[in-house]
């Protein structure tokens, strides 16, 4: 193909750029869109290269300012895949649906966070802390040093290889002859994975506890266990769906956020909910 030479390609050194920038993933963490500014920061150098024209670049920058939250060591897998997708979009703007980029991001961040949080936070960090504190409690400076090494060496290795493998995976999938069909499948499969994990996390990570009891003495039942008797985690589910509905109604995230704070304090004041 003659257009092959005109193709804009992401090189190894571009991936290095993403790697270093990805280290700032939590620098400007915010309630509204969480790690989004750092995500766009990580991608920007590559986007500049792929989109010399201002209009396309602006579209791409806006794309990566969308909500993002992922366990940091695994976040680069998503960056690698989306870099390959941006590359495809820059080279074949007519056959590529840029909306699929954010679909893939949204679908992957949940499952990767589930895996990343339980491995890096739940396992590796506890291991490093155990080793570190055993030295530190005796006053040895080896404590903090070992703690940092045991955690960070695996985390950085995973971060780099996740990026490279993510990019290769994205690129090889897109180079396939039936790339659009395959991408659609990938996007569909990823949303199955994403939604199941978000469903599970909605139940496990949102906590609402109703205070108070119904009845007296030994027969007394807490309101909380009654509500959970109807459907376990009914209130967390209701919360997620209600906020989803508000978002659909174009209520701003900041308004919802403020609402949650005011609601929490009000409910605690009235003694209806407890932490």
């Amino acid at each position, binding site marked *: 193909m003659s257009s092959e030479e005109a193709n804009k390609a992401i090189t190894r050194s571009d991936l290095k750029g993403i790697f270093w920038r990805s280290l700032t993933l939590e*620098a400007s963490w915010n309630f509204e*869109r969480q790690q989004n*500014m750092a995500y766009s920061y990580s991608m920007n150098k590559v986007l500049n290269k792929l989109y010399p024209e201002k209009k396309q670049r602006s579209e791409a920058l806006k794309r990566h300012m969308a909500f993002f939250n992922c366990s940091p060591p695994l976040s680069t897998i998503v960056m690698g895949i989306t870099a390959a997708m941006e590359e495809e979009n820059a080279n074949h703007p007519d056959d590529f649906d840029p909306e699929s980029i954010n679909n893939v991001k*949204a679908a992957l961040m949940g499952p990767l966070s589930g895996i990343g949080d339980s491995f890096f936070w739940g396992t590796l960090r506890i291991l490093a802390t155990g080793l570190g504190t055993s030295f530190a409690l005796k006053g040895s400076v080896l404590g903090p040093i070992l703690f940092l090494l045991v955690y960070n060496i695996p985390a950085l290795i995973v971060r780099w290889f996740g990026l490279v493998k993510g990019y290769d995976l994205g690129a090889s999938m897109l180079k396939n002859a039936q790339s659009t069909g395959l991408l659609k499948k990938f996007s569909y499969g990823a949303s199955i994975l994403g939604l199941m994990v978000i*469903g599970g996390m909605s139940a496990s990570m949102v906590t609402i506890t109703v205070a108070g009891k119904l009845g007296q003495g030994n027969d007394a039942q807490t309101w909380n266990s009654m509500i959970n008797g109807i459907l376990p985690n009914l209130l967390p589910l209701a919360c997620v769906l209600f906020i989803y509905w*508000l978002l659909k109604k174009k209520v701003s995230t900041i308004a919802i956020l403020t609402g949650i704070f005011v609601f929490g304090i009000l409910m605690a004041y009235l003694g209806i909910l407890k932490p």
Partner: protein
Amino acid sequence: MNILTQAVLLAVVTAIIPVDWLTGTSNISRPLVTGALTGLVMGDLKTGIIMGATIELAFIGAITIGASRPPDVIAGGVLGTAFAISTGKGAGFAITLAFPVAALYLIIDNLLTILVLPIFLKKGDEYAEQGDSRHLNRMNIYGFITVKSLPRAIFVGLAFYLGGPVMTNLLNLIPDFVQNGINVAAGIMPALGFALLLQMILKKNVAIYFVLGFALYSYLKIPILGISIFAFCLMYIILHLETRIDHSQTKINQGGNDNEF
């Protein structure tokens, strides 16, 4: 070393510690590390390391998962260690002081994140619209300095200068229902994150998988990693079946033109 010099030095160290979030969430903000740094500044490295480890074990559950936010381990770790060294009162004292200051700073940090960070975010949106990635990049760093680094440093410096009892009194001034209410709100907060994610990927034909994931946890208590494994298998099976259906349909459609048969 007089108390003012120490307060300034502690503030400087505290301004640097959030670099944790510029270095790949490298955990340098954990008390195990900050205790040692505080000890170095206070002139007693060994006690600093021991206090840091003690506070670390007390705070081991305090980590950020999703959108839930734990008490501030930086303020807690640095001030707990610093007060333990300056008063010579030992580990128990360090921990009893670390918790109130960590809780107090969490409130301040939440307010800053809610009120100040969106300014940079909004600016960032404007730069994205203009295709100006250079200025957009700066917003990431400015947000970090203005919200995560400087206010913490000022808080720690001031808190050390004023002394531990003042901090505890300050926290006691805040009514219980406000602190409980913030915790209630923090419990609900992740719901916003999930709703934002749903807004990005929820479509009618896949909504059922959300229900499945919810039920797997609610009724069977399968941990998230387990749900991911089930989801992955299910995804594989569905894609496999659909590919087979697609293939058989293509064959039917192509009819006599199919050379393979």
